């Protein structure tokens, strides 16, 4: 058990290292660096940039060192919580980001919660009432949910909110709380505004989850122990909860590994469309202006969120599934 956990933890570290290298390569990919873009911008405005000043800035930002060294400076900074320096804002990334990271985490967590809470009863209903009208209707809805990309759903929501309510749903809190320190009222306001983006991001994940839970539970329901239980005279509800549901729950938890990258991706684009104060819009801006340290930090943060989330789901699964505890391997 401990052995398994240790190995799993090592994998997480290794994964994060590889991802950081990948992100750093991406940061370095665009031809030229931020300074050359910055210079071009200044020159287009008719300002003259002295070579001395450029050289000074280059040294200040460590752009004159070899790539490997830059990478190590960046990674050690990351570990110490220093996310680098945003050239665009002329501020350390940590200050630019503010509570966007926290809001991103809240948004993603709420979405996962939403997916579980909604898909669980529907999935169980669909499986126990297979081929009923309710099952068909829900399956059709699920297909539509899978096929409608979440940013289009966000656009549709924005459109209806604009046409019928004359308001914008593209916020995460009431305006008065913007840039305010955290307080109970602010948190309540966030919770009140959270449901629209959570619904938009969660739809496709929920649809997928319902389909998988339904399939898993249907498989279990056909097994012999269910027939035995029924023959013994167990009441239907008790039988369902006691055996097959528990078996079908394992893939339900294990699936977080597939779902989390999806949700994080979805939250990025939906936030960008609805201009929520999370990492999404800022990542987009940073990428467009090739402010690569800021962008890199965001991608790194999102990857971290996913990898840690999957790690936690693995821990949960160990607690749920004795086979993993005994053999030390996850069976998916």
């Amino acid at each position, binding site marked *: 058990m401990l052995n398994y956990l240790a190995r799993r933890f090592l*994998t997480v570290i*290794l*994964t994060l290292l*590889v*991802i950081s290298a990948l*992100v750093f390569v*991406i940061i370095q*990919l*665009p*031809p030229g660096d931020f300074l050359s873009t910055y210079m071009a911008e200044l020159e287009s405005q008719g300002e003259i940039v002295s070579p001395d000043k450029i050289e000074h800035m280059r040294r200040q930002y460590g752009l004159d060192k070899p790539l490997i060294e830059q990478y190590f400076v960046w990674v050690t900074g990351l570990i110490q919580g220093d996310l680098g320096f945003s050239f665009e804002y002329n501020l350390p990334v940590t200050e630019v980001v503010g509570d966007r990271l926290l809001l991103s985490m809240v948004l993603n967590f709420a979405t996962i919660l939403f997916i579980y809470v909604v898909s669980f009863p529907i999935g169980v209903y669909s499986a126990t009432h297979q081929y009923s009208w309710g099952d068909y209707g829900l399956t059709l809805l699920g*297909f*539509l949910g*899978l*096929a*409608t*990309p979440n*940013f*289009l759903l966000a*656009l*549709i929501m*924005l*459109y209806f909110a*604009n*046409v019928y309510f004359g308001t*914008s749903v593209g916020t995460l809190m009431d305006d008065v709380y913007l840039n305010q320190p955290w307080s109970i009222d602010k948190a309540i306001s966030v919770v009140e505004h959270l449901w629209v983006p959570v619904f938009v991001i969660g739809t496709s994940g929920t649809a997928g989850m319902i389909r998988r839970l339904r399939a898993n539970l249907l498989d279990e329901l056909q097994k012999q122990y269910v027939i035995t239980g029924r023959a013994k005279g167990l009441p239907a509800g008790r039988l369902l909860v006691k055996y097959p549901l528990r078996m079908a729950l394992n893939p339900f938890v294990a699936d977080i*590994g*597939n779902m*989390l*990258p*999806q949700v*994080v*991706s*979805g939250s*990025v*684009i939906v936030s*960008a*469309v609805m201009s929520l104060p999370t990492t999404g819009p800022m*990542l*987009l801006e940073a*990428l*467009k202006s*090739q402010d690569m340290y800021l*962008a*890199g930090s*965001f*991608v790194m943060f*999102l*990857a971290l969120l*996913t*990898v840690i989330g*999957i790690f936690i789901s693995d821990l949960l699964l160990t607690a749920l599934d004795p086979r993993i505890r005994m053999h030390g391997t996850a069976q998916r």
Partner: protein
Amino acid sequence: MSNDLVHYVSQAPFDPTAIEALTPEQEQFYMASQWRMMWWRLKRHRVAVIAGIVLILSYCSIIVTEFLAPYDLHSRHTEHIYAPPQGLHLFHEGRFVGPFVYGLTYRLDMENLKRVYTPDTRDTQVIRYFCDGDEYEFWGLFKGRTHLVCPARGGTLFLLGTDRLGRDMASRLLYAGRISLTVGLVGIIISFILGITIGGMAGYFGGWVDSVVQRVIEILRSLPELPLWMALSAALPVTWSPILVFLGITVILGFLDWPGLARAVRSKLLALREEDYCTAAKLMGARPGRIIGRHLLPNFMSHLIASATLSIPSMILGETALSFLGLGLRPPVTSFGVLLTEAQNIEAVALYPWLLLPMLPVVVLVLGFNFLGDGLRDAADPYTDL
């Protein structure tokens, strides 16, 4: 024994194969190739067949887009900016005149500066067929002017309205379909080749190759796709021409999609390489490439094609999302995502809702690929009954 049995002897010559003999239909059934059986099973899946037909029609349409579209991709109608969709009518004042549209009269609403068009019911504009319209270069090969449908002389034909620059949405949608559908197809080919090669090597050789590939797949799958796509496409040089960007985006989409396929190939090959016929091929001196490609892959090719079909939608959606965010394709290359960038301004959409129309083909295509893929997957399963 009260009633005696009559002693009966059949006089017909004995045929030892009588029981095994097959009627011609049975013979056809049992001798059918794997692909033919798959086709039979697919045919029973009504939704999948309809989805397949829709997709085939879409792919056929992109071959002759120039001919189908009433206008050119870029032709602007400055006096019809943000014109609403013109409804098709058949009867005018109770009399059949064939498909026609009513002309539009334009007025600027001075209160909210909205462009208001009202159909003029006296002005019937009958649609012409196989007629001369905007000049185009067919696939850049030869020039032509013939279109399937054209507006009446001096009239307009905006079946789906026009955009900010007065360009016909219907024509633009047709042209955008060409790009979006190609992205999906080219992307999946790249990912298919990568998946088969990498997954095949991992499954066939096992050992350290397998471990390395497994780790890479794990890492790639735990990454949130979209931010990575965004970062990579933002890293494409700004100086690239739109066509190069198009290729770059397709390659990016294909390069990050292979892990799913590679995983499937690997797990199948791990089991199949232990089969006797594989050992036999090895003993006869076949090279790994031949064993994998000739003897092992055909075992589950149908299954692979089904999973590939199921992952085309994610490519199309990925491209749409990237272009929509302004990180993907750029005009003049037009895809559904590029068209949707017009819908980013929600105030404009509230006034002119037909800007949201490019969503429709995206959803239809994604649904189509999902249904067809599901049907193919069921059909490729050799254990379902016929």
